[in-house]
């Protein structure tokens, strides 16, 4: 058991980090919306799903064929731009359709939560029954689509003894880290970022100080959506498959990562994402893959028992956000 863990340590670490990077990017959307609106946006997982379909569409439309090396990076950027735009737009639309009317009427947070679940199912079914057939022209059951043979991924960029990093894992990791740094800078350095932080801290005072709440909320959803879209593009490079319910499990994991790091805290979401990714792969090398989720969620419960606000504590509002 321990032998397995030691022998698989390096491959597990690399897999854990590249998986954690995707969790972290998706977790950002949960954590930012929670920070600003105190709402768990359960439809965020489906915004991610929409992104995977946009990335898939890009791959097919651009006609990538065995793209590898530097060209693969270009392909990923193109996919990320399209998926980010579609997911970002989708997230804004979601806010306008599912949350804003409720917010304007001062409905309870519970109503918004139910609206979120409804929107989530709506988007899933829309993709499963309409988009997948009409846009992707598949008559296949199960709604599964693959992009195999479009990427060339078997090259090991780093090959040093036990440590082997393939190009796709490296791209996923670096791409995610790049986006996180960009977001961190955006929230801390820009005027809109300040608006987001002030709304998170105290919405009423922020209004008095001339912050346009609607605009802040829109931007929050937009940014969260873009992150989910980029995550979706990276996911497509790594796993090359999608379906209309792809967001479900991944969404729960990303939400967990957000809670683990301290929901409402951007850097916490990052830490939580990587930690969850590593815990999962270490857990499965120790106890077998069947235990993967058991280990991950047991640790979550333990962390929350002893530190209910998550590893890095709450707060988008404070400057460390």
């Amino acid at each position, binding site marked *: 058991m321990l032998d*397995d863990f030691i*022998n*698989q340590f390096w*491959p*597990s670490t690399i*897999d854990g980090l590249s*998986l954690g990077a995707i969790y972290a990017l998706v977790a950002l959307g949960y954590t930012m919306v929670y920070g600003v609106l105190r709402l768990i946006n359960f439809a965020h997982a489906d915004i991610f799903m929409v992104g995977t379909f946009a990335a898939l569409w890009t791959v097919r439309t651009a006609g990538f064929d065995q793209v590898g090396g530097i060209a693969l990076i270009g392909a990923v950027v193109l996919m990320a731009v399209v998926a980010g735009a579609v997911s970002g737009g989708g997230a804004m639309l979601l806010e306008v359709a599912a949350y804003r009317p409720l917010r304007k009427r001062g409905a309870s947070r519970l109503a918004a939560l139910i609206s979120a679940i409804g929107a989530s199912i709506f988007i899933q079914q829309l993709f499963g029954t309409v988009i997948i057939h009409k846009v992707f022209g598949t008559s*296949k*059951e*199960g709604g*599964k689509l*693959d992009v*195999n*043979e479009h990427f060339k*991924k*078997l090259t090991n960029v780093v090959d040093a003894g036990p440590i*082997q990093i*393939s190009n796709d894992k490296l791209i996923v990791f670096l791409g995610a880290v790049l986006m996180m740094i960009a977001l961190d800078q955006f929230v801390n350095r820009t005027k809109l970022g300040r608006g987001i932080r002030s709304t998170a801290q105290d919405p009423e005072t922020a209004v008095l100080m001339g912050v346009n709440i609607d605009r802040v909320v829109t931007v929050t959803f937009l940014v969260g959506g873009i992150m989910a879209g980029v995550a979706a593009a990276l*996911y497509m490079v790594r*796993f*090359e*498959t999608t379906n209309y*319910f*792809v967001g*479900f*499990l*991944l969404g729960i994991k990303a939400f967990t990562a957000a809670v683990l790091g301290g929901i409402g805290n951007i850097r916490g979401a990052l830490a939580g994402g990587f930690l969850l990714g590593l815990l*999962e*792969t270490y857990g*499965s*090398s120790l106890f*077998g*893959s*069947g235990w*993967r*989720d058991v280990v991950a969620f047991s640790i979550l419960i333990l962390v929350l028992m002893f530190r209910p606000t998550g590893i890095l504590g709450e707060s988008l509002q404070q400057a460390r956000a």
Partner: protein
Amino acid sequence: MRRNKMRVTGAVAVSAVLALGAVSCSDDDGGSGGDGVTIGFMGDLTGENSGLVVPPYQGAKLAVDQYNATNPKVKITLKKYDSQGKPEQATTLVQGAIKQDKIVGLIGPAFSGESQAVNPILNEAKVPSVTPSATQITLAEKGWTYWHRVVADDAVQSAGAGQFLANAGVKKLFTVSDNQDYGKGLADAVGKAVPGAQVKSDAVNDKAADYSSTVNQINQFKPDAVYFGGYYAVAGRLFKQLREGGYKGKMMSGDGSLAAGLIEGAGQQNAQGALLSCGCLIDAAGKTNEKAKKFAADYKAKYGSEVAIYSTEGFDAASAFIEALKAGKTSTEDINGFLKTLSFEGVGKPIKFDEHGELAAQDIFIYEVKGNTLPLLGNSKEAKVS
């Protein structure tokens, strides 16, 4: 308030009338007369695993159409019952099939779970059934006198796959399952069926996409072969990640993965050489017998697609009923009695049932991914990897 009450009363009244209606037109049982009989086909015809059920339906339909075209005394109407593979849906449908449609026999149910739910009802109503594809071992042990199947069960499949792997020189085997009833049962049984092999196992989550930790374990164990128990969607993902993770050994799976979806999921390059075991015969080239070739040609002419998983078995199941009708048996009891003594060469294999309703001789066939197709390699006893 009052209006609500009225609505509720109205709804109750309407459903009561409907229920009464259903009862009133269902007061006599089984049997049939006139110029034709109805035979049912039950299975997941539109749900997510319909890829495994539409081919046997088409096989059965072909048999029935060919029979009807000979202008027999008793014509057959083949009626579809789409259970979507769900036991609760299947039990409702079967009652309608028995009482309203008065079926004299049922082809199906296609899956083991729904078979468990439906066959006690058929047995009670004394309606014979022949399943083309439900492979769970315990179905034969329930003591249903009206139940038959024209495919080998999972025990025979795992023994066949095990024997094949041993013949191929496998000393170290890694089994992976999707942790579901069918997949885990099959993977565990195959693990025990390779004599003298060192075996390790793991399971993956069928809803997740990342199987990297399983891949790491396999790469560490360095097995000669990996056997996956489960359905093609997961098998495709696993095989793909195995090849991308640098695994070079053999990859094999069972009947649940015997579909073109496996090649799409893994990617054509990654899927090359993947092996599949199945109690079903898909033999368009006529490697095993001439009848199979003719059947494949007829099937293609009618549906425009190649024979697929269980289409042969669907044809043979329908043929079993057709033989009974040809012998002049038209009541459910007579047909069932006839099935007990039935013996003929089916398209796939000799059709002769033992006292439990199982085929007297059960064979397992091995398939290998080549290009974009899954051609037959041969019977598991003699098949060799190229």
